[in-house]
């Protein structure tokens, strides 16, 4: 008996749809939630000839190759993520062979000054070895260490410390002026 009632209801619904199809109901726009439009960026400056940084410039290296790779606490081995970052640096450096770089190893504040200088030196040396293995001439690379003297993140938290455990690659000469 219940089945019969359900079938009847279904037929009624179909009849209603059929009625709509033949005689459209007045068009009512669906009620969308009110959302503020995204803030408009200020009007762009006159369009440059080329989008993005000048190829071969320091900004190009920073943006497209990446200039920092990160390490675990008191470690200097390169993670697969760090190696992928360094592959991009190596490719960029091979495309622009006049560029010379300084690799600076950095440590977080969870260590003492002198030990962290030694740890930073290990990190910059690890990056140097990797880049040389990828074909970047050793003569183009200088390394140094800042220990815990050059934090980039002032948060005293795991996230902040993780960002401060890095090796930073800086183009010191030979970049295209952009």
């Amino acid at each position, binding site marked *: 008996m219940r089945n019969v009632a359900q079938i009847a209801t279904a037929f009624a619904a179909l009849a209603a749809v059929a009625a709509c199809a033949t005689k459209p109901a007045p068009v009512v726009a669906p009620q969308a939630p009110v959302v503020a439009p995204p803030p408009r960026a200020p009007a762009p400056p006159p369009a440059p000839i080329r989008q993005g940084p000048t190829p071969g410039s320091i900004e190009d290296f920073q943006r497209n190759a990446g200039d920092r790779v990160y390490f675990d606490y008191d470690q200097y081995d390169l993670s697969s993520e760090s190696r992928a970052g360094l592959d991009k640096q190596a490719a960029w450096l091979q495309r622009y062979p006049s560029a010379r770089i300084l690799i600076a190893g950095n440590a977080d504040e969870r260590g*003492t000054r002198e030990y962290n*200088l030694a740890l930073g030196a*290990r990190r910059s040396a690890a990056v140097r070895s990797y880049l040389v293995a990828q074909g970047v001439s050793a003569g183009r690379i200088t390394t*140094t*260490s800042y220990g815990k003297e050059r934090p*980039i993140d002032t948060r005293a938290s795991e996230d902040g410390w993780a960002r401060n455990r890095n090796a930073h690659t800086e183009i010191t000469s030979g970049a295209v002026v952009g």
Partner: protein
Amino acid sequence: MRNLITRVLAAAAGLLLGLPWASAPARAAIEVDIVQGHLNPLPFAAPDFIGTDGPSQQLGRDLARVIRADLERSALFRPVDPAAYIQQFGSVNDTPRFADWQVLNAQALVVGQANIQADGRMRVEFRLYDVSAGQEIEGVGQQFAATPDNWRRIAHKISDALYERLTGEKGYFDTRIVFVDERGSKTNRVKRLAIMDQDGANTNFLTGGDALVLTPRFSPTAQQITYLSFAFGMPRVFLFSIDTNRQEVLGEFPGLTFAPRFSPDGGSVVFTLEVNGNSEIYRMDLRTRERQRLTNHPAIDTSPSFSPDGSQIVFTSDRGGSPQLYVMEASGANPKRISFGQGRYTTPVWSPRGDLIAFTRQASGRFGVGVVRPDGSGERILSDAYLDEGPTWSPNGRVIMFFRQFTVSDEPNLWSVDLTGQNLRKISTPGDASDPAWSPILP
């Protein structure tokens, strides 16, 4: 007089045996136990030094004020409030009315006189009295002649003479501290070498702040400092002459150089040289410029510090998997691990007495300064904070200074603590401060 000698000898014996003063003869009237003294500091009176005219009276007030502050800061002595003094002295040769001082419970009394002479030089003399015994303690009073602008040093020299006579140990007041003055935000820090008296007075800046400088250390024999500077872009060990303000790089090396310290004879510097990521300890003779490699291990080897007899070196190495302390012969032979507690051990520095090594220990996310015997026994942690780092010893091996960040958001400042773990004090500096290094007693 015989009583006094007995007291001093007993004090020395108590120190050697590490015994509390309770073991001293009961006859002792003035007794300062350097190990337990902070529990029961010796009450003393030091009236303003007598002056015969306005300028020398001012000088006399200043001298007595600095002497009282020196002795009080040691926590072995407690000044009786000068407002309670009864007797007024007209001359350093007046005999004290001992009853007037006994009633104040003063046990020691210092009476001094300052005169500015016709030639503009000042003359200072003083006497020390044992109030209970009602007699002068002889052999301590001295006369000093100096230009008036040196009055602070004269006050510190008098404090040292009093401290030595009453404790049996050398004082440490006529000394200076070299440290790193810090200004600016964490990501754009300006660091300058600075020097001040041990009580925080007379700060002078030795470098201008254009180059990052770290870890200054005094020569034990000359007015010279060795430190790390980034003046050439890379970490390099430098020497600084305090008398001439001359800076000089310590030789040319194929890698980074850092973590310098002088040998006890001042004739050489030990430091770390990093090549291809590997840090090793080297020694350089400052006269011949000959260099000698002391470690040979793929691990980090850094922070070398000589024993005061020059025969051994303590250093940090992570050859065991984490940074720990090792002691080797001065030639580099026979390195032996001496730290076995929980945590990471770095920045070892040998006490000028030779009996202990101070260090920074990092455990459970916090840092503390501690001491351990050179054979690795008797480890004691003296301090604990978010960051306590870089101990340095007073020349008598009784006080340790270090730098501290109380909390994550705190800026670094200088602090001192007694070897007992008591008497923790903040040292006043004009800005933020780190990396203190204590001078020897000034010549």
